């Protein structure tokens, strides 16, 4: 599809992603978009928060990945995706990136720890509501996250889960498939019934987005 005129709200990429001009995508080289994904205005994606802790696998060949997003995802207005980070204790000091500020280096000397981000992986058909902040480690397919949620660090959300509006999912929480989660802190409040499964398909939604 050809690029729309400049006036349009969305830029459509070759793989069919519709990215709002008013979104903030930082570190684009570290972000993978699977295609047909909609990114609305004021969405922030932090691709710059890269992993500094070298992984055992030989991942470092190509571009390092900070955020990986599948197909037919929908990021509503004002949501923020940031890779989770934590302190790795007992790690070698000289592996610190030289760019890190000196005060941080000092601290790290004292505690002998490094701070590193971890990639954020989002599968297909994931809907993220407006104003939601996501710091999860993994979000499975067909997950719907409501408005104004906070998804804590390293949370794992499995397929077909639904997070209700205003939920605070605590860090490290695992949300099993077919769960409905709500509350602060979030807890499983119900189950997604068999009939609702089809409703998680976001293809229609994708088609509905246009300039």
């Amino acid at each position, binding site marked *: 599809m050809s690029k729309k005129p400049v006036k349009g709200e969305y830029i459509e990429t070759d793989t069919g992603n519709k990215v709002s001009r008013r979104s903030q995508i930082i570190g684009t080289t570290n972000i993978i978009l699977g295609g047909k994904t909609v990114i609305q205005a004021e969405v922030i994606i932090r691709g710059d928060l890269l992993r500094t802790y070298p992984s055992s696998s030989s991942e470092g060949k190509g571009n390092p990945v900070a955020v990986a997003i599948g197909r037919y995802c929908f990021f509503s207005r004002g949501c923020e995706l940031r890779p989770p980070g934590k302190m790795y*204790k*007992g*790690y*070698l000091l000289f592996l610190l990136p030289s760019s890190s500020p000196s005060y941080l280096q000092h601290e790290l000397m004292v*505690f*002998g*720890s490094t701070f590193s981000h971890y990639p954020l992986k989002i599968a297909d058909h994931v809907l993220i509501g407006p104003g939601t902040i996501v710091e999860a480690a993994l979000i499975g*397919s*067909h997950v719907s996250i409501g408005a104004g949620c906070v998804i*804590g*660090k390293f949370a794992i959300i*499995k*397929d*077909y889960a639904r997070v209700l509006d205003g939920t*605070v999912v*605590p*860090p*490290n*929480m*695992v*949300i*099993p*498939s*077919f*769960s409905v989660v709500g509350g602060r*802190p979030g*807890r*499983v409040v119900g189950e997604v*019934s*068999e*009939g*609702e*499964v*089809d*409703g998680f398909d976001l293809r229609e939604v994708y*088609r509905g987005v246009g300039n």
Partner: protein
Amino acid sequence: MSTFTPYTYFQCPCTDSSPPVRNIGSDSPTSIHSSSSEDEKAFDPRAPRANYSLYPLEHLLYCEDCHQIRCPRCVLDEIVTYYCPNCLFEVPSSTVKSEGTRCTRSCFQCPICIAPLSVSSLEAPPEGLGAEHASQGGPYVLNCPHCSWSSKEIGIQFDKPNGIFTQLSKIKNGGDPVITARERRKDREERSRDSAPGPVTDEDGVQDETVVKLDPNEVLDAESQFSNLKAFYQAQLAEASPANALGFSGGDYGYGSPGALSRIMGLYTGGTYADKKSKAKKGTMREAQNAFEGLKIVAPNSEDALIAKLQNEGWDATSSSLQRDEQSTHTPFISDLRPIAYLLRTKRSKRCKTCRHILSKPEAKIQTTRFRIRLVALNYIPSISIKPLQPLLSTQLQAPLVPMKPTQFLLTFKNPLFESVKVNIATPAQTPGRFASKITILCPQFEVGANTDAWEEALRDGSKGVEREKRRTKAEASEGQLQAEAGKVWERGRNWVSVVVEVIPASLKPSPDFLKTEAQRKLAEEGGEDDRVREDEDVVEIPVFVRVEWEADTGGEDGGLGKEKEGREKRELAYWCVLGVGRIG
């Protein structure tokens, strides 16, 4: 005013027998069709019981053998797999039986805020070169990343970072070791051996220097009291059981054998005085005598310390009732709370209660989300969506309904079947309840075209937008003087039809007496007539009776596509729906 989203709920016919709901479908659907008293027996969505039979379409299943809607109340659940929702490990049902329904690995919830706890080391990590990946030494604690609670607060630390469940079961709050059931058993054996030669009446305490020192007046916690009691009763039963004498030690056989049974029943019946005497000779089961046997005598001052603590530490030291609910024992104080092991979850299959056919069956594996069988009502009965006919500006979206001003809504019926269906809809002229809104369906009878293959739909991807476009222009063109014609379908698509329903919302002020219906007058007479609008009474809910007719293949499954159409059969389905269209402003 809170926003209002229009909704459609379907009534499952399984609640037919309940009084406020009329009998539909299950026995003879045709008779209902012809019945003229439709209005009188109309389903009342405000009836107290109505709530229990109304479901969104997505929650309903459909039984292909009964040709009927099935709701969560008329299906049977069968557990396929147990698993821990935190570590997602499957737990075999035998383990569930023996270990209980909680995760026995290291999955715990915070007793304060129920967030998941994570294990972390207390010790500062080893420093210097070569210390990487060096195992961090203990002690370990459970930390809550949400509310910063730590198991250190209740004096619990662990030696190893894994197998927390087993470790925790051995530590009391405060760090003292729990005397395990096994140690208790050992102690018991020890004692019984010592006391065997002597008379039973011999008080314990003398032989207390056994493996573990147990105090006969020990203050037992609930778990050890239970295990002590159990052991005591078991010993009593075994003693009374002749099977044991024959060498069957314990086990089910010993208790279940007919010979033992009369003795077991001694536990219950005791018998009359005469009975007791005769039984005493055989050795009736006696009562527990001390803490070893699970007897817990209340010391007169036992609760003084509790009260003193309550007084000194006040409100903040006590646990809230929500926190207590999660605990297995009584925990008046925050310091009594223990980390909560995750409750297991299940994958369940569902069966029709009447014909026992499986309606839904998930794959047994936890990681997969597929279903082997999934008969959802969504694929069998037309879905109904509601939207106002007047295109609304985004600012006045979900504006409240204006009393007495006719408002038109579009009901869109979408057919999921691969046959075209005939739809009849009917409503009472007025909504039930104190505030009766008037309802008129402009086109109560129509036909909805067949659904097509998903592939076809995918291929028609592009044309869809055009269709939408068309609809929009139509709406815009006639804006202002929208005039729905009676008896005609408003709009029609490949497998959907929109019809117009007109609602004249009632005024929320009590209507003057001459306008009141009989029922309302009666209600007023019965007293309790208060003019205040009760909760959600301002929502206009329209009961709609829907009857769907279609022709389907006999024998073969409904909607089996591409099959030869031999032997067509007429099917019909009738049910009540409730449409929530809006709030009266």
